[in-house]
């Protein structure tokens, strides 16, 4: 493989993987605290549409990103309220959030353009690539790693921070204990409900941010079905990563890489039908999930937080 091809594939990999990685880390946090949120796809959709609409009307990318964080957080708080306070079925609640978010994003996408028109096809301000001096000139990796947009750079900080917080900080310990054994955590005076609220909402905000990267940097604009199932791939990546932010990087890179290879093959004019190439990420998700699950069963350990998806009711000691 020649060097420029390698660089180009790595560049596309990073760009395609950015939204996935934000959403995956967000979902890791929610699930570590014991809340399964299958609404990632819906939160990404609403994040994408709200970010683009705000960027288009105000011209401010900072406001756009803040709006996406807020929108994802607000949607996630509905899920948190239902699953923490009202102990609803988390699978159904998350699915509803995805349906609702997809519908809401599509509704907004047709109303938030100038004078109540459609957003589809409009060109707004977008996050450009910001090459970092010196570093971006490095051979081989430089142009891929250090000539990206600001949200991709944000991951260079978020990933180690998320890992450190989860494993090395006291609040991170509380988060994990609430997800593994809420009874014990409660007895130790850790507030189970409050922790679950915080990390579910934080997870939603990150999913919204992932959506913002799609509409502000990756596709640069709003289209119906902009996420194309990325929210679901993120849910699968959480399992792939075994609830670890560092391993999530490998997963996101793998899926971003499939996108990149598919993109290059199409650009090279391959005879393989486009539909088959487009199926690759979905087939890969299933294959990877099977391998991971099979491997974990062999190891006799499942990395899932023990209390994942189970509502905590203090008066009913388990």
């Amino acid at each position: 493989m020649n060097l420029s091809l390698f660089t180009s594939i790595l560049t596309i990999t990073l760009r395609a993987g950015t939204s996935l990685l934000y959403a995956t880390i967000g979902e890791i946090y929610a699930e570590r605290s014991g809340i399964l949120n299958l609404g990632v796809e819906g939160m990404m959709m609403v994040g994408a549409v709200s970010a683009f609409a705000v960027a288009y009307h105000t011209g401010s990318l900072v406001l756009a990103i803040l709006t996406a964080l807020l929108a994802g957080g607000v949607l996630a708080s509905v899920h948190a309220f239902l699953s923490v306070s009202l102990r609803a079925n988390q699978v159904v609640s998350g699915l509803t959030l995805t349906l609702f978010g997809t519908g809401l994003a599509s509704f907004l996408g047709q109303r938030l353009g100038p004078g109540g028109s459609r957003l589809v096809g409009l060109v707004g301000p977008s996050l450009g690539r910001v090459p970092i001096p010196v570093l971006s000139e490095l051979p081989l990796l430089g142009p891929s790693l250090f000539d990206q947009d600001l949200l991709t750079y944000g991951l260079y900080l978020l990933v180690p921070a998320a890992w450190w917080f989860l494993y090395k900080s006291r609040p991170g310990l509380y988060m994990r204990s609430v997800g593994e054994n809420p009874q014990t955590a409660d007895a130790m005076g850790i507030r189970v409900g409050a922790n679950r609220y915080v990390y579910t909402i934080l997870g939603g905000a990150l999913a919204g941010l992932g959506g913002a990267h799609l509409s502000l940097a990756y596709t640069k604009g709003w289209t119906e079905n902009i996420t194309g199932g990325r929210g679901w791939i993120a849910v699968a990546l959480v399992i792939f990563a075994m609830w670890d932010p560092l391993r999530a990087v490998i997963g996101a890179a793998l899926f971003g890489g499939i996108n990149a290879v598919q993109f290059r093959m199409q650009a090279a004019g391959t005879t393989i039908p486009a539909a088959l190439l487009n199926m690759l990420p979905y087939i890969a998700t299933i294959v990877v999930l099977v391998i991971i699950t099979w491997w974990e069963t062999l190891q006799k350990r499942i990395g899932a937080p023990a209390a994942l998806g189970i509502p905590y009711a203090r008066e009913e000691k388990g």
Partner: protein
Amino acid sequence: MRIVFEKRQEVSRTIRVLVPVLSLVFALVFGAILLLVSGVSPIAAYAAMAEGAFGDLQSLAETLVKAIPLMLTGLGVSIAFRMLFWNIGAEGQLAMGGLAATGVALYASDYLPGWSILPAAVLLGMLAGALWAAIPALLRAYLQVNETITTLMMNYIAILLVSHVYHGPWRDPEGYGFPGTARFPEVAWMPRIYGRAHAGIFLAIIAAAVLWFVLQRTKWGFELRITGENPKAARYIGIDIPKLILVAMLVSGGLCGLAGVCEVTGVMRRLQQGLTVGYGYTAIIVAWMSQLNPWGVLVIAFLLAGLLVGGDQIQMAMGLPAAMGLVLQGALLFPMLGGSLFAEYKLRIVRPGHQQAVFPEESLAKESES
């Protein structure tokens, strides 16, 4: 002051009825706010929706057209949900059913007598849906692979496959470049009742009756119910859970496949864009709202179909996005989900002073000691 939940002695029937009603009110109010913000009178919009969905025979027929796939996928999804198998792959199973039926309709007339084309399309479509569902079912039953993800990924694969087929190999050579297959021969048409409403409704009613009978009156139905309610107990009494999952998913996928058959043979009479418009996802709401009761599925599917037709109606008449129907469905299901808690629990407010009064002897004893 603290709020605690107290378990009720028995499930409150009043609240069971009240929750769906209040949820509907909530959804309508939420939608009204959204409409007001968009600068449209909610009353006019809702009136247009109701009129468009249930106003006359023609609109009732259109509602039925959308209700049929919702009923069949709703029944399919609910049988899987009973086993706590989260089949969200109804959309893909529907697509594969439609694809198989199209193959029969277009290419089997050389080999089969005319009268057998439609039954063959129905059978093959159901088989295709069942086989598509069998993949995630096998993975879950024997390898414990998370079915939520696999069924969903299978949707994307099926939708891409179907779109590839009518854009490419099966595209109508005389279709002036229009993506879609040729029109089916008349022997492959599902008979119509009124307008576009077709005989698929009878298939849905029969399916509901059979499911209800099987669930209530057969050993298999009993095993299915017990496994969903208490998997541990099911294992103790020797139920083969992997096999049960597999069979339940074959039935589930078969029903979803049948929905696809109905769409291509009853409504579109060819395979083209518009086969997968989200029925498989709305089916999840149908199944949940009907509390997995087959007869309930039929009723709820009809009502939600009304919402969808109403949504299309306000798009055509008032230029509002049809996604309004989807938003209302979500706004309807959220309070229903949350509200179901109150049928089993009641809220009690505990004041700080109140708690001390619970143990009068203890506090008296303490006082006398000091």
